């Protein structure tokens, strides 16, 4: 066998170049990990199946708002400090979120919460003989007729609202002769800045558990709105200090989350910095609630409601065990296959090239995956094994076709061309069969389909032609 002639062949050179490039892209580095053990890290991105984490598929109520929703989710996730998160759209109908290290409940809280934030202050108006006064701004007469009220010339039934001097009031309740109007002090869009640093946040123990508090800055409009609403609310001087008789109620997605007392000092003042606080059962609970609320206020409400339609939660220990066995499976499979080949041909000169070709196919597929930043998950590993399987089949075809005795004087080159005709046709069919998988199942099988297709293409263009050249050298060199 003429090794130098072989080494100069363009197919062999291309194979070596691909192997070299793949190793460079995979970038294996020998590192000393924190626990003292030595390990190898690569730049191959491991999918959720191998690392553990949560993958959620979300269906937005309004698909046209997908991009905006993704932007909002990204802000939310960043505010929470989650760096290992991937959010992307799948097709035109779904959003896929992958997060490592969070529980399923936490994911649902972050993703399914639309995040509509409102802060409201109630005003109670005592009516006598059907009339009372709303002490707000220029003061307004309120007439009550059964359950209907008339204020500022407008007739309101329960749940109707009107706007007075730029503030929205909703007629929310009536008990006996007392009319309850709820003024909208802040909405999510009024929040200009959310403070997350230690100076502006606090978590303290209370008698009933813990309480978190953090400061936010609201717009000038919102600040003056608050001033107007609170200007004429009476103060209640109690043992703990002076507070207004009405609280400010915080709502998240129309559910009340907390009700805060308003200090007398804030009465009628245009305050742009306000403190938001809430309860927690434990310190961790309080911190978690605070972070979620901060994230929601920072990102704003989701443009459209999201529904989790598919969720996969893989535990990290399970993921790690998959990884180990997958690597082992690939190597062991190649070894066993070589054994089968040996039984058939009984010639090491054939078995060794097949072994090397298959291993280099795996390497180059991983190299391409590193290059295009493709994540390797369980499906991708199955795809690699599938591609290697077709690789072995093709190499058997090449070996057999090249050793066929024929009545016509066909050159070895021609026989190899025949072999590749079969190989190319089969390769096209495999690619055709895998292509639909790229588009269905909300991308769940994209990893499998892509690695198989990439593997087949690499095989047909690089590794198997090189193998054919080696076989030619073996046969002709004899």
């Amino acid at each position: 066998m003429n090794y130098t002639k072989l080494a100069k062949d363009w197919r062999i050179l291309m194979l070596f170049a691909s192997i070299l490039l793949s190793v460079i892209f995979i970038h294996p580095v020998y590192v000393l990990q924190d626990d003292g053990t030595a390990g190898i890290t690569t730049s191959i991105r491991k999918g959720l199946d191998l690392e553990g984490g949560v993958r959620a598929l979300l269906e937005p109520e309004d698909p046209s708002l997908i991009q905006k929703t993704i932007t909002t989710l990204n802000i939310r996730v960043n505010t929470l400090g989650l760096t290992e998160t991937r959010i992307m759209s799948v097709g035109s109908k779904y959003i896929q979120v992958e997060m490592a290290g969070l529980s399923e409940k936490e994911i649902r809280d972050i993703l399914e919460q639309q995040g509509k934030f409102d802060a409201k202050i109630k005003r109670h108006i005592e009516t006598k003989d059907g009339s009372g006064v709303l002490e707000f701004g220029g003061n307004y007469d309120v007439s009550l007729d059964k359950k209907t009220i008339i204020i500022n010339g407008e007739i309101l039934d329960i749940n109707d609202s009107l706007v007075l001097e730029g503030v929205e009031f909703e007629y929310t309740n009536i008990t006996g002769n007392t009319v309850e109007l709820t003024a909208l002090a802040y909405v999510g869009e009024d929040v200009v800045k959310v403070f997350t640093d230690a100076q502006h946040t606090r978590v303290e123990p209370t008698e009933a558990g813990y309480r978190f508090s953090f400061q936010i800055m609201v717009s000038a409009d919102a600040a003056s709105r608050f001033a107007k609403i609170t200007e004429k609310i009476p103060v209640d001087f109690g043992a703990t200090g002076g507070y207004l008789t009405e609280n400010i109620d915080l709502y998240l997605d129309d559910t009340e989350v907390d009700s805060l007392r308003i200090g007398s000092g804030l009465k009628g003042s245009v305050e742009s910095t306000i403190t938001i606080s809430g309860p927690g059962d434990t310190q961790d609970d309080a911190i978690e609630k605070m972070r979620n609320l901060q994230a929601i206020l920072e990102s704003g409400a989701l443009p459209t409601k999201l529904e989790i339609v598919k969720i996969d939660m893989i535990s990290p220990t399970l993921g790690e065990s998959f990884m180990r066995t997958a690597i082992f499976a690939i190597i062991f499979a190649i070894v066993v296959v070589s054994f089968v080949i040996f039984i058939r041909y009984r010639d090491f000169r054939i078995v060794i090239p097949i072994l090397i070709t298959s291993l280099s196919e795996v390497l180059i597929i991983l190299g391409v995956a590193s290059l295009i930043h493709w994540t390797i998950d369980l499906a991708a590993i199955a795809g690699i094994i599938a591609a290697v399987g077709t690789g072995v089949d093709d190499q058997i075809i090449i070996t057999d076709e090249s050793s066929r005795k024929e009545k016509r004087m066909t050159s070895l080159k021609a026989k190899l061309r025949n072999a590749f005709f079969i190989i190319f046709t089969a390769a096209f069919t495999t690619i055709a069969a895998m292509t639909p998988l790229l588009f269905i199942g909300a991308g769940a099988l994209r990893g499998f389909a892509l690695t198989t297709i990439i593997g087949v293409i690499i095989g047909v263009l690089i590794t198997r032609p090189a193998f054919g050249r080696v076989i030619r050298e073996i046969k002709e060199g004899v």
Partner: protein
Amino acid sequence: MKMITDYKKLLLISLIAVIFSVSVLCYNYSTTGDFLDKSIDFKGGTVASVAVDDSGFDLAFVEGIATEKLGKVVVRTTTGDAGTSIVFESEDVITQESISDILDSAAISYDKDDISIQSVGAALGEEFMRQAIIAVVFAFFLMGLIIFMTFKTIVPSIAIISAAAVDILFAMALMVIFNINLSLGTLAALLLLIGYSVDTDILLTTRLIKRKSEGTLDERVSSSMKTGITMTTSAIAAFSILYLVSTSAVLDQIALVIIFGLLADYITTWFQNVGLLRWYLRDKDKDEEEDEEEEEKAKPRYMRRQEKAKNAKNRKRTKSKKGKRR
């Protein structure tokens, strides 16, 4: 091993395989309403599994608590790399909290971080099922197109396409028997079978149809079998290793489905496809033989005598050559 050369016998054997597969699938349809049992990927629902610290617990007790808290739920155990796991299956959503709740109530210790949950909404599952059917139809259509464009003849092309179809049918039948349900992973495996099945069939068809000069039909069939059986056996070996070594149920199922299909490939390629091609070529060979005889008759007598003498000489030469080689 003596090769069966009668195409009728070959086709009969493959027909038995087809009837077997179709009956299994129809039986499943009549008892469950589906040809293949669907996993949550296609019918919606939740599967949650938790690794528990020891296997000494009463499953029925756990199931009782689970039913109380979750409604209709199936509870079973599996053992794997991580030890024993309890698996909960329900048509609705199961959250991590409810799992913790159930296990705490049953006083079973488990690793809180070692819970795996897969949940698919019912509407999504139905959509996936529709997409799956379209994917299979599309794959077959593309495959058929490629095969037709390659061979340009009807019978051989149909032989290859039907071989792939029967491989998939047989794999599906074995899936029913071995209780493997149709998931996104096993769907991918079935589609992959198209590629593997076609590999051996194209090899066979190319050798039989396009390389007529390479020996008798029987010789070509037997040499193709040697190559093809090596191919299928090494693929089965590779996926068997995957099945034995992997700890992931998903990879296990994919491996098994491909192995099932490859086992079927032995029959569909070397009985069904060979049978169809023998039938197809037998007619063509007959035509060729008749053509040759006609040609011979048309030649003048002196030419025929010359050719006879030449052939006799050649035979003597090859005979002695064979002797020397040995």
